[in-house]
């Protein structure tokens, strides 16, 4: 393939690369939407079938920890965006510190999630093994907690993978002289990171809010 080295051409090629990566990432996110969509479908079907059991399950979830976690994720999205802006301005130090903050906040989210999980294990509210031996829980509550673990688990897995990729990006970028050339990578990854936030925005009301009053 021939390519001339004019400035205009290279700008065009950079724009083309960005558009290609952007399209690719959005298509990937479309597939992710259907992935979580299957889980939400199961959730809605059983909420429809067992409204009281699901309400009881929601009440068991810690609202304060959930709210804090939601805000943490949104803060991480803010830092991700700031990191990208700084990179576009070729401010390497600022960009990397924002990205590190983003990863740190992601880890904090996971930390709080593990705290919630351990609370549940203590109360035997986990699927498999001895499940809720003490009380007579309504039918469907077991399904609620099963779905709770699967949905937040799949979400957490996506977050973990995101943190891993972010760590790798931070490592690679810290060894590059100029951050400005890598904005396409950051921008494309940023779409994925915001998407994780997006999924949580719908997970949060489903698992922590809806039906607190039955």
């Amino acid at each position, binding site marked *: 393939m021939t390519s001339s080295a004019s400035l205009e051409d290279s700008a065009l090629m950079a724009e083309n690369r960005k558009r290609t990566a952007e399209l690719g990432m959005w298509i990937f996110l479309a597939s992710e939407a259907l992935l979580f969509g299957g889980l939400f479908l199961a959730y809605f079907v059983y909420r429809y079938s067992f409204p009281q059991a699901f309400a009881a399950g929601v009440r068991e979830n810690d609202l304060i920890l959930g709210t804090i976690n939601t805000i943490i994720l949104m803060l991480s999205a803010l830092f991700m965006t700031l990191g990208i802006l700084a990179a576009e301005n070729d401010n390497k130090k600022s960009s990397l510190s924002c990205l590190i903050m983003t990863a740190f906040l992601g880890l904090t989210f996971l930390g709080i999630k593990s705290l919630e999980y351990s609370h549940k294990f203590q109360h035997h509210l986990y*699927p498999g093994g001895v499940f809720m031996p003490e009380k007579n829980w309504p039918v469907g509550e077991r399904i609620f907690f099963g779905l709770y673990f699967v949905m937040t688990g799949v979400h957490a897995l996506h977050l973990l993978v995101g943190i891993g990729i972010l760590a790798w990006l931070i490592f690679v970028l810290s060894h590059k002289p100029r951050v400005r050339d890598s904005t396409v990578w950051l921008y494309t990854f940023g779409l994925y990171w915001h998407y994780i936030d997006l999924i949580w925005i719908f997970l949060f009301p489903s698992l922590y809010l809806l039906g607190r009053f039955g």
Partner: protein
Amino acid sequence: MNEHPDKENYLMAGYGWRSWFLTTDHKRIAILYMLSITFFFAIGAFFALLIRLELLTPAGDFVSSATYNRLFTMHGIIMVWFFLIPSIPSVLGNFLIPLMIGADDLSFPRLNLASWYIFMLGGIFTLISILFGGLDTGWTFYTPYSSSYASGQVLNAGLGIIISGFSSILTGLNFIVTIHKKRAPGLTWGRLPLFIWAHYATSLIFVLATPVLAVTLLLMIVERTLHIGIFDPSLGGDPVLFQHLFWFYSHPAVYIMILPAMGVVSEIVPCFSRRKIFGYKMMACASLAIATLGFLVWGHHMFVSGQSVYAGIIFSLFSFLVAIPSGIKVFNWVATMFRGTITFSTPMIYAFGFIGLFTIGGLTGLFLAALGMDIHVQDTYFVVAHFHYIMVGGAIMGYLGGIHFWWPKICGRLYPKGWPGLSALLIFIGFNLTFFPQFLLGYMGMPRRYHFYPEEFQALHVLSSAGASILGVGYIFPFFYLAWSFFRGPRAEPNPWRATGLEWKTESPPPVHNFDQTPIVTEDPYSYEEKP
């Protein structure tokens, strides 16, 4: 353009493990896929052989019931996910899409290689599941059997399928972005070959349907290991929900298996009729329509499952509608041939076979779409015959036709005369002998997945097994003559069929970067009538 045997083409650009297993050249990746799926086909065919051997006699005497259940399960899983779904897209699609649009490679070449590795990882999990005794849930993994009661390698097989699903998603993503972004100058959407349109539609299905399969099998595995109750009726779960989720993917999956084959036929028929395709726009729209409508019909697999009959009515209606674009395609292929100059080359024989057998398979699908009729034939051999007519009579014939059509382009050599025609004939005869009796068996009440049956069904089963042996022989011949051709066949020129299409304007085999100079497209596709 004369081809120079010593000029560097993609096959000769680099030897050794690394140049093949770390390649990002879409052509080499296509070859890797071709070898992998041929391997899986052999395994799936072996299971089919054992099945047909058992069914020769009415008594269940060759294998036990438990073993028979494992045989048809493994046959289905391997053939669907490790042969049919990747066959045309990952082999011919990977090889041809960049060539047909005048690009040097796909948009994400390294992702393409990753797709192959992910596919092989999924295959390894599934092979492990076979080595450790397999599973007996049927390829459909229906709950609560698979999630609560089945013993066997459900976990490994499920994981293998989930992993191979990610390979499909990434391939589909790659194709969509490539077709949008890397078309040569002048190649507008209205000038794209129908093979590209078919793969675009298929890629949409890959991206939108496959994730639902992944999450469904995940839920089944979680249910199996942690008993959360989503598919267990005693804990409030609904097994039919599994079926909704499973078929939401698996029905569009059958369109993944047939749309690319239709794309292949749309390339072969105009070439060997020396006429442009009849109704190009309708053919392109029909591919998209099949992909779209295919998402609305999944409940027709569940008419007798306990699903609401009102939902059944809606699904039945959509199932009738989705037959329309398929019918349009068949009509247009035949209309293309009208007053054409037909050459009975091997690809054309396969194309004819496809059109006839797909029509039969498709029409019998309409019987199944009718609620009342379906109650009679659901879960019988009628269904088995229907989908084998489409999958084997349609998709595999499309695949073989495509392999033969583009063989000169892929390896720069011609296949021998005589043997391919004989193979195609054996495949056609063997296929019909195997599967036509199964329509009759099913209609008369022979259930599927049973290995013993009443005496009066034996004659038809014997015919079917005899046909299967002929079919098997027909499939074996290409292994030999294509391998011979690869190493010792006569050299091919760039365009031995005098076909239109950008892929024929470069050498056979193509150079690593496909085109020495980016081609510029100025004419409509299938311009055969200007060059008789």
